[in-house]
């Protein structure tokens, strides 16, 4: 009500102004467009402005009503960049998936047990599972699908006796194809989990 008392006279005044200026022919009203072309957009420069990679404060009241898959929660007590990557060690054990599926195929058991064995050979080593998709599917759907593929392998490794907290997952969606081709053969190679063995950094 109070608003109306203020706004209504303003509207009346505006209408009056418009009808006066609107009637003058040949003398168009001028709209001044203020300022520079666009509001400032500050370039962040480089990665120096990025916050350091630190474990997040996880002491928050997390509400959950989910029935968890076999792998359990993903703790935040370490991140893969604290370790040394050894992509060659388990390169032969990459596993592949059917189209739009995060189910570990029959026949991949040998690769899962090879990865589990490598982890039990050195209890200081850890593992990063990189989930990937072919180029079909929408981008954010694929980013979720890649993560589900990585979580499926984690679940299989936990069942094989690996401590879940030694494993981290990352999804590259369709952003890291093994084969950048656009045919069925390339797609089959790209629907995969790569296993990256992680060694402790010297002196840590």
């Amino acid at each position, binding site marked *: 009500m109070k608003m109306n008392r203020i706004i209504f006279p303003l509207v009346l005044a505006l209408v009056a102004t418009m009808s006066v200026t*609107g009637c003058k022919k040949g003398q*168009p*009203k*001028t*709209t*001044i*467009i*203020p*300022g520079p072309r*666009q*509001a400032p*957009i*500050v*370039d*962040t420069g480089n*990665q120096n*402005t*990025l*916050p350091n*990679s630190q474990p997040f404060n996880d002491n*928050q*009241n*997390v*509400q*959950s*009503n*989910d*029935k*968890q898959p076999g792998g*359990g*929660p*993903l*703790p*935040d007590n370490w*991140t*893969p*960049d604290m370790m040394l990557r050894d992509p060659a060690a388990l390169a032969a054990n990459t596993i592949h998936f059917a189209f739009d599926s995060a189910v570990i195929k029959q026949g991949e058991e040998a690769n899962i047990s090879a990865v589990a064995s490598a982890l039990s050979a050195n209890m200081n080593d850890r593992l990063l599972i990189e989930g990937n998709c072919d180029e079909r*599917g*929408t*981008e*954010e*759907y694929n*980013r*979720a*699908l890649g*993560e589900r593929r990585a*979580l499926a392998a*984690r679940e299989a490794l936990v069942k094989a006796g690996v401590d879940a907290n030694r494993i*981290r*997952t*990352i*999804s*590259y*969606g*369709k*952003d*890291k*194809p093994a084969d*950048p081709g*656009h045919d069925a053969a390339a797609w089959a190679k790209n629907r995969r989990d790569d296993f990256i063995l992680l060694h402790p950094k010297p002196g840590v």
Partner: protein
Amino acid sequence: MKKTITTLLALGLLCAASINTMGDDEVTIPTKYINILGQTKPIPVAMSGFTGETADVLKFDLTVQGFTFVSPDTAQYLISGSDSGDVTGTLSDKIAQKVKFSRGYNGATKRRQAHAFADDIVEAITGKKGIGETKIAFKDQPTGYGPGEIYVADFDGHNARPVTTDGAIVAKPAWVPRQLALYYTSYARGNPDIFYHNLTDGQRRVLAGYSGLNTSAAVSPDGSKIAMVLDKTGSVNVWTCNADGSNLRHVTSGIEDSSPCWSPNGRWICYATKVNSRRRLAKVPAAGGAVQYLNTAGVSNPTEPDWSPDGKYIAFTSQMGDFSICVMPADGSQTPTVLVSGQNPSWSPNSRTLVYNHAVGHRQILSVLDVFTKQYKDCPHVPGSNSQPAWERKD
């Protein structure tokens, strides 16, 4: 007067005709519903006196807001003026035979003056605020996949500028309503994390950097909450938190959740999921509660929902072999209408235009689509693949 009534009658008949036509190429719609997405006829306008960039801007802006350019004899409105110096323009109603407005523009660039004139035309004819001075954010990937940068541009793709320089994989920019600030996913720290980025002072901070996936940020209409996709518990679900990262809440528990967006009243989060082996769109109260599944009968594999700012519609991507942009009433009163080939729809502040990306060969380009006439225009592109456009939210 008689002329006006005749025109109204004719328009009414055209509407009736288009409703019938729509019924034919869609799934069967129960007769009690009017097809509110029935295509409307574009408003015919004729333009004279403008050249080059000014003419291009006027054509682009008006085409994607429901106007079509015709010869003066068949036009309903006449747009005239000059751009020899600053832009001056007049809009006349040919049927009512009167000048709607006559105005000059100065300052900034001629391009922006033309956008301002287009906005005045849209507002004078439709009563709705134009989109000429709005912005979009999107991502560009130079090689079509892998690393890229987040860009900000005018809504028509002009004046595109990168706002990141990390050379990292990036994804899914989302605007903070009424602010020059974005959330987006970046792998700059090695993991997909959600960043907040103030574009005015360049400050960035990590909103979500948990183990596993942190992606698909969507900002609530009041800017106070962020919905996103995390898998902290070991399953990929939708979570919310406050703008400072606090008050983290697990809001969905589906088996294949992705792509959250907010209803404009902030009460619902709409997202893509899977139930009984079928991909569905669902909505869940943002404060937590029972999931409701949306009726997307007639299309398959819906993802990437975006709720129109006026609350009436949900646009999304369906995958039926190829990707299609679809729109449905948010109240579920009607099944989706398939509009054009493309992905990642994002509503303009006027709730009638969408920006989206579609394939040209193996890369993506951005386009702007007028939902109610299906008229669209391609945007100029940054070299590489341009995708995941997000239109700024003004209200």
